[in-house]
Structures are given as structure tokens and as C-alpha cells.
């Protein structure tokens, strides 16, 4: 998307979904975030929801910049608090559909508490979590998703902490829709986003994305294309797989698919039920 000429820009099919006046974007060559944003834009179009009533919230980080490129009411907030911010929007105006689009460090590390609590409450929002196994914006620090023994600048002798299995965490906290794709699975990711957008409740889509600048460079895994090839050869689609079997190690096989799709009353459902109860008293 970075080098579109003016004439091409005018006819770009995502013109009305992306802020073309902000292009070129900040992401490095080989990064998967742009692909995920494209899939998101396509998913938005496919879901045929009222875009006026849709807004997007991001935290801080490379993925945190997504909100700035999507042409919806968009908020770029503080580190880790995207979900909390979105909760406020959703509860104050339940007609809105909120998407939280952020990275693993933002959502799972500093924002971990809001993640599990929003899942527990089942607040109506879609969380798209780009997982690149590292803090990229600050220069390649270890993340809670960094696989064991993997190198990062703050784990110069190999990561010593087991990584989070994000689908399992989301599932056990109470999310109603959990899926995982890689930046390679664009079509399936698009479909998944379109599906999750229509689902009431707390939905989580994890997108495994290459970070050619830090994760691949520090661990000598080649460039973005090499990572895409790796995803091609080492991913397995297993819908409905038990979320506890979805751990990712260093360059191990990655299981992708839609794992959880269930019904639970959303926060606003329970709230309104409780409210009508108190009114009777």
C-alpha cells in the first residue's frame, strides 16, 4: 500500500475504509500488520454492518497505530487500556460495535487484566490481537508471548518464561468467540473477522504476524517472506480444537482455526435484566 500513485489511490477499493491521507504507513517491509488491516477492512465490508455505528480503539505499539489508518471513529489510547476504553464506549452507548485492534504486549501484558475482565463480563466487542512474539515498537523486548529460549533484547540469553496461549486465556476467561490465524491466512481471517463482527459478546481473534525487523532478525529467521513460507509449511487448521492444546513454541507447528463459538449473555443483557429487576422493587 505504501507506494500507491495518486491515480491508483482514487480507485482503491478500500478508499472509504482506510485513511488514505495517512498513507504511507509506519510499518516495516515484511510486517504482517498491514495484511491484517487489509483483512479487517475486507471483513468490515463483508459483514455489512453499519460503519457509522462502528468504532475502533487501539493501544500503544506497532499495532496500536492501526486505529489511525482505519476510517471509522478511531481512538489511539494509552498503553494496555484499549479494552478498558472500549468498555466505556460500549456500556455508555450499547448501539455501537467496538473493535479493539492492538498487539500482544499491549493487550496481554500490560492490558492482561482488562482482557480477562472484559472476557468475564462478556462485553460486546471484537478484539483483534496481532501476535508477533515481541515488543517491536520499543525495539525488540521480550513479550509474554515470546516462546521459551527465544532471544530478545531484554532476554539476551534466551526467554525464560513460558508464553501465553492466548486462545486458552480468552476461552478460560469467558470469551464467546475465539479464533487464531496467521498473516498468511488472509481469506480465512477476513471471513473470521466478518463472522465475529456480527457476534454479540467478547470475541478474540489472534493473528500470528511476522516481525521481520526484530523477532526474525534477532533470532535469524530470515525476512517477512521467509516467515510466510514458514507459516505455509507449519500451520495446521483444526477447527474446534481444545484451546489448551494451542501452545506455540519456538518455530513449532502452529494450530490455527476457529476454536470457540458459543452463546453467553453479554454484559448489557445481564445489566438490563438486573436493571429491570431493581425497577420492580
Amino acid at each position: 500500500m505504501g507506494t500507491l500513485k495518486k491515480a491508483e489511490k482514487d480507485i482503491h477499493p478500500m478508499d472509504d475504509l482506510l485513511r488514505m491521507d495517512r498513507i504511507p504507513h509506519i510499518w516495516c517491509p515484511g510486517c504482517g500488520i498491514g495484511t491484517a488491516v487489509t483483512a479487517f477492512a475486507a471483513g468490515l465490508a463483508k459483514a455489512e454492518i453499519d460503519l457509522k455505528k462502528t468504532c475502533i480503539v487501539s493501544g500503544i505499539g506497532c499495532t496500536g497505530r492501526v486505529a489511525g489508518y482505519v476510517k471509522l471513529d478511531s481512538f489511539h489510547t494509552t498503553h494496555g487500556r484499549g479494552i478498558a476504553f472500549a468498555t466505556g464506549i460500549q456500556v455508555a452507548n450499547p448501539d455501537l460495535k467496538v473493535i479493539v485492534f492492538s498487539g500482544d504486549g499491549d493487550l496481554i501484558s500490560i492490558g492482561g487484566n482488562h482482557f480477562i475482565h472484559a472476557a468475564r463480563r462478556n462485553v460486546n466487542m471484537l478484539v483483534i490481537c496481532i501476535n508477533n512474539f515481541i515488543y517491536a515498537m520499543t525495539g525488540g523486548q521480550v513479550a509474554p508471548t515470546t516462546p521459551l529460549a527465544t532471544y530478545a533484547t531484554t532476554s539476551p540469553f534466551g526467554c525464560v518464561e513460558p508464553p501465553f496461549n492466548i486462545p486458552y486465556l480468552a476461552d478460560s476467561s469467558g470469551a464467546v468467540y475465539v479464533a487464531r490465524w496467521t498473516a498468511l491466512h488472509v481469506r480465512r481471517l477476513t471471513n473470521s473477522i466478518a463472522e465475529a463482527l456480527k457476534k454479540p459478546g467478547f470475541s478474540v481473534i489472534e493473528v500470528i504476524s511476522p516481525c521481520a525487523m526484530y523477532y526474525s532478525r534477532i533470532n535469524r529467521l530470515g525476512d517477512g517472506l521467509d516467515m510466510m513460507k514458514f507459516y505455509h509449511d507449519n500451520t495446521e487448521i483444526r477447527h474446534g480444537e481444545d484451546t489448551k492444546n494451542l501452545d506455540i513454541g519456538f518455530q513449532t507447528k502452529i494450530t490455527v482455526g476457529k476454536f470457540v463459538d458459543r452463546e453467553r449473555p453479554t454484559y448489557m443483557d445481564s445489566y438490563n435484566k438486573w436493571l429491570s429487576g431493581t425497577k420492580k422493587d
Partner: protein
Amino acid sequence: MKANPRDVNSGTYYMDGDVAAGYGALAAGCRFIGGYPITPSTEAAETFARIAPKAGAVFIQMEDELGSIASIMGASWSGVKTMTITSGPGYSLMMEAIGLGAMIEAPFVILNIQRGGPSTGVPTKTGQADMMQARWGSHGDYEVIAIAPDSPQELFDYTIKAFNLAEKYRCPVMIMSDECVGHMSEKVVIPPAEEIEIEPRRFYNGPKEKYLPFKPDKDLVPKMVKAGDGYNLYITGLIHDERGYPIKNQIEKGKSQKLPTRRLVDKIRLNADKIIELAEEGMDDAEVVVVSYGISYRVAIRGIEIARGKGIKVGHLRLITVWPFPDKKINELASKVKAFVVPEINYGQVVFEVERCSHGQANVVLVPHGGAGVHDPDDIAEAIEYAAKEKKKIRKVIEWKTRLEKFVFEGGYKLNK
């Protein structure tokens, strides 16, 4: 006590300020850093993570800044020297815990590499706008020590000093550096271990059953023990007595009750003269004094040069420790000079303290800068010139209109090209 040779990577280096701070922490005997990545401070954490394991020290990247600071306080009470590394937004998250640190008198150091604020602001560029936050950011009354280094060498030296002060006064010590100093590469000389003076922890040596965790010595600082040594400690963040037991609620009618928290502020206020470190230059016949700290100090040097070239007698006072504030020194100077000029990379913070301490005897001129850059020395020079000429006593901080401000708001600057 001297530093442990194992901790000191002696030699002459060309390194940036953040890295120097990492080396300084280890040399000071730091054994634990709990941190969380934030631009522009990460290099300090990365350095420590790289050099610590060879010295038996540990770096852990916590889940957030709230966790980082809570963990270093725990480590501090387990008997080791500790530090955390952050920048503005992370610093704001640490505010509650800084109060806890003051209350349980855990010695620890916070390295704050300031950036442009407020909120996310300009992450990759400099600022000096957390200065008042360092002093007032947590709820309740407490006092802290804050140091503002101006070069990578000082980030090494004053990191060690910060640890020493923390151990001596058992209070949170802040190193209020900024992105410019943190990312500035210069020569850094790490001296041999025997030349580095280290303040050991004030451990209690008496009989176990007689130990009172908050019974102060003469200088109002109590002695410490390690958790797990059988002292049956009771340490709480509630207001507590000498035993550490919480004080019960309301004051009984008619009875006088002094809260023990008074000591937390007194131990710094009454020892302020021992803590404060200043540097001054050209003060003898000065008409105008420039008060500066951190990176602004180095920019001000050039500004003063220009002003002196025009024949103005300018003195330069550098605040190495910004908190506790040198009230007496400013007051004393105020009676001698015409005006103070305070360049800082914010829209007025420490300048209000200078105004307060000058007691209306001298004018106070602020040369502001919003951050994401440093002053134009010409602005400082012009402000000095103005201050030297102004005969009226002006009853407020005079905010100097900088070239940047004129350019942005009057010069037809276009943001959206």
C-alpha cells in the same frame, strides 16, 4: 564501603546515557531490576539484562509498570538493592506505589528518562515535564530525592549516588533524566571498583526481639532487616507506629495525636542541606542568574556565552538535586541579583519553585519549551538580556516568548503540508 570489582566494568567507553545508567546500577550494587519496556528508557533495561547474570543480579520484565515497582519494593525488603526503569506514562502508573515505598521506607531507585508529554506525547523525543510529578505525583504527604544528570558520564555517576542516597535515607530516589541525555553518546569513564564509594544498607544488629522496624535513628531514618531472617516483621502501607502496627482510626476528641507520617517528610526536610548538591559558576558579580538542570543546563551554557558576549554579568546555578529544592540558596541569591532566568523543557514547573523562594526580591523569567527538542540558546540569551534590563519588579513569572512559539503561531507554520 567500596564497590564489588565483579560489578564494575572499569574502562573508558563511548556509550549512550541509558547504557551508562545500566552500568552504573550494577556498579552501585543493584541486584534486582523489575522493568517494563518503554521508549526512550529501554536501553538501560537491555544493558542491565545483558550484564546482570554475570554478577549474580537479575532482570525481570514484569507485566506492567505497576508490577515492576511493586516487585522492586519486595526485592528491596528481601535485602538487595533495587531499581526500576521507565518514562513518563509508566512513571504515572507507578504513582500509587511510590507512596507505598515512602510509607514502608523501602530504599529503591527509579530511573525516569523523560519524554515529551502529556499522555503518549512524543515518545522518541525529549521533555522535562515530569519534574513536579516526581515531587507531588502520589497521594498523601511524602518527600523524595530527585537528581537530574546532564551527560552519560553523570548518568553513570549519579545512578550510583542515587543508590547511596536511597540506602542512606530509605526513601524513593528518582533519577530524572531525559531522552536527550539518555540517547546521547559520549565518553564514559568507569573507574576501578576501589574508587567507587558505596553506601551499605543500614542493617540492624541488635537482639532480634528488640527490633522495631520503624524506630528512627537520630537522623530520623530507621534501620532495616531482611525478610526471612526471623524478625517476624509486620510491615504495612497503612499509617503505622514504630512496631509497624497500623494506627487505629479517628483521633479521640480532645487528645493530641501526631501522626508518624510526619517523620517521612521530616527525614528529608531536616537533612536537606546534606542532600542538596548544586553547581555554580560566575556568581560573584552576577546580575542575572540562570537556574537550570539536566539537558537544559548544557543548552543554557551556550545561551550564557552569548549573553556574556554582550557584556551582561550572568551567573549559572545548576540544580543537580532538584528535590529537595534549595530554598535557602535561591533566597540568598534573590537578595543579590536582579532576576532569575529558568530555561526548562516544559511550560513552567521548577520555575514556580524559584519564584516562591525568591520572595519577590528578584524577577523570574521562564524560557519554556514544549518538548520534542531543546531550547534555542538565542532565546535564553535574549531572555537574559531582557531580565538584565527590566527595572520593574514584576509580580508573576514572566513567560518568554520563544522563537518556536512565534514561528508556530505567528510565522505561518503549516502543519498539514
